[in-house]
């Protein structure tokens, strides 16, 4: 086919997709070999999350909703780790349930195994399953589960089993973690780490306990609404939220024995470049458009 000489403006307007995509791959991969620290001002909603996690009473357990899997580990994983690290440092017991994906419990367990390993290395007491934390498991029906958790948490968890310290299967309600939990109000807070819209489902139905949420960037704006209206006490959004938490943690626990920086610190610098690329592409497109426009105008006159 005959090649027509195209002006720079036209070229700028029609960069071939493969080129864009290749650049994006380069931009998102290469910088990862050269991590650099990035300055950061934590946003208010993330600060609220941190304050709540660092001020809730030690004697009450936290109920954690873990509705994320490998596919969103980039954001949710970082947020989840940050929260668990804080709770572990404060020796707060926690119970994890999920309504999003049958795999979520396993993913959560894996993270906790890693964090325990990390604690052992840094000479801290590993968190024991059943005694310090417990995985309640997966519930197939988010709406119904949220309803019954709010309505009667004992009934909701009644037929869930978990191995106890000795490895015998016991009803989860027998666990020391949940000892003395009569209603959902006996948890100091419900912290939901979600990559789906289980956030709305929970907000709509769970009203008896303060809610804190850690959501992905996508659910951010939607969930922000509930933070504004006070239905959420704290809200960490996406990688920024994750990096916010990590920043705050390293202020609170500067000690060498504490691992504070993780996914957030790893990915945040690269994110900058990727976003810059996006902006550059948009700018290029528009510049090109204006250039061609000008030319046509000149031709006209």
């Amino acid at each position, binding site marked *: 086919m005959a090649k027509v000489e195209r002006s720079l403006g036209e070229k700028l307007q029609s960069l071939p*997709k*493969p080129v864009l*995509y290749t650049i*994006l*791959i380069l931009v*998102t*991969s290469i910088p*990862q*070999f050269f991590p650099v620290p990035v300055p950061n001002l934590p946003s208010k909603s993330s600060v609220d999350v941190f304050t709540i996690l660092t001020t809730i009473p030690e004697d009450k357990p936290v109920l954690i909703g873990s509705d994320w899997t490998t*596919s*969103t*580990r*980039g*954001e949710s994983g970082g947020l989840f780790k940050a929260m668990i690290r804080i709770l572990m440092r404060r020796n707060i017991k926690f119970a994890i349930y999920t309504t999003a994906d*049958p795999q979520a419990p396993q993913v959560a367990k894996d993270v906790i195994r890693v964090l325990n390993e990390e604690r052992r290395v840094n000479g801290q007491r590993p968190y024991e399953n059943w005694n310090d934390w417990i995985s309640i498991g*997966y519930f*197939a029906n988010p*709406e119904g589960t949220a309803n019954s958790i709010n309505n009667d948490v004992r009934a909701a968890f009644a*037929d869930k*089993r978990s191995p*106890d310290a000795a490895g*015998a*299967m*016991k*009803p989860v309600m*027998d666990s020391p973690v949940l000892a003395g939990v009569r209603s959902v109000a006996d948890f100091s807070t419900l912290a939901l780490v979600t990559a789906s819209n289980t956030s*709305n489902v929970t*907000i*709509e*139905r769970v*009203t008896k306990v303060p809610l804190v949420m850690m959501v*992905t*960037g*996508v659910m*951010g*704006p939607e969930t922000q*609404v509930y933070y*504004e*209206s*006070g*239905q959420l006490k704290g809200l960490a*959004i*996406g*990688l*920024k939220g994750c990096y916010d938490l990590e920043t705050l943690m390293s202020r609170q626990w500067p000690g060498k024995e504490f691992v504070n920086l993780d*996914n957030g610190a*790893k*990915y945040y610098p*690269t*994110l900058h470049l*990727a*976003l810059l690329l*996006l902006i550059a592409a948009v700018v290029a497109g528009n510049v090109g458009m204006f250039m061609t426009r000008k030319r046509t105008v000149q031709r006209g006159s």
Partner: protein
Amino acid sequence: MDPENLLKVKMGVGVLATIGLYSVLYRENKFYRFWEHMFLGLAAGWAIVALWTESLHDDWYMKIVGNGPEGTAPSTPGYWAYVLLLPIGIMGYFVFSRKHNWLSRIPIGIILGLWSGQQVQVWWNRYGPQMADSIKPIIPTTTGFFRPGTNGLDPAQAASINSQVYVSDAITNIIFLITLLSAVSYFLFSVEMKNKFLKNMTVLGRMLLMVGFGAIFGSTVMMRFTLLIDRMYFIFIEFLKNGLFGGS
């Protein structure tokens, strides 16, 4: 095979799959088609497994037959009535029958009924608080324009500052209300916008919606890129750097 290598192989397959699925970015090709069909197959297979292991076994079967005694938990009796759900489910399979396909509407009807009832139940929990929150002071309580910062003031002073509605707050709230009302009025379908004011209102509503969408786009971009970065981390750092070329 020792766990070390197994892990490497496992990661390798993951990387291959990733590349295969990415290849569609260039164009649809056999390599993509291969991974796509494998993906669909595994997903369907998993659906069959999970149906029983994650849902029916606990939520249905165990309810019917009950549990034997376990740990401190005494045995629980079986509730036979649950079995009635099975025939109702079976009705769905009449969908291909020319004569009785209407039967398939019964299970669907029940599911829809349950859903509909839930809407009535949850509507207020969701929208009541939102209405309450949308009610904002639109008249300032003071002539001060900007809200002064409260750092380093004693609580009483800070409290009195925070209790005030400054002119800027009032303006902000008015903008909030205008956005809300005009955006909602954009979604009035049966009201004929003869009146010029109403027309402009809906146009404004659409504009303001775009602001909202822009903001959403912005904050979504963050997550999408993060996931890509995470993938790249998996391929280049976890697999290549630490995996194949062993650590450091």
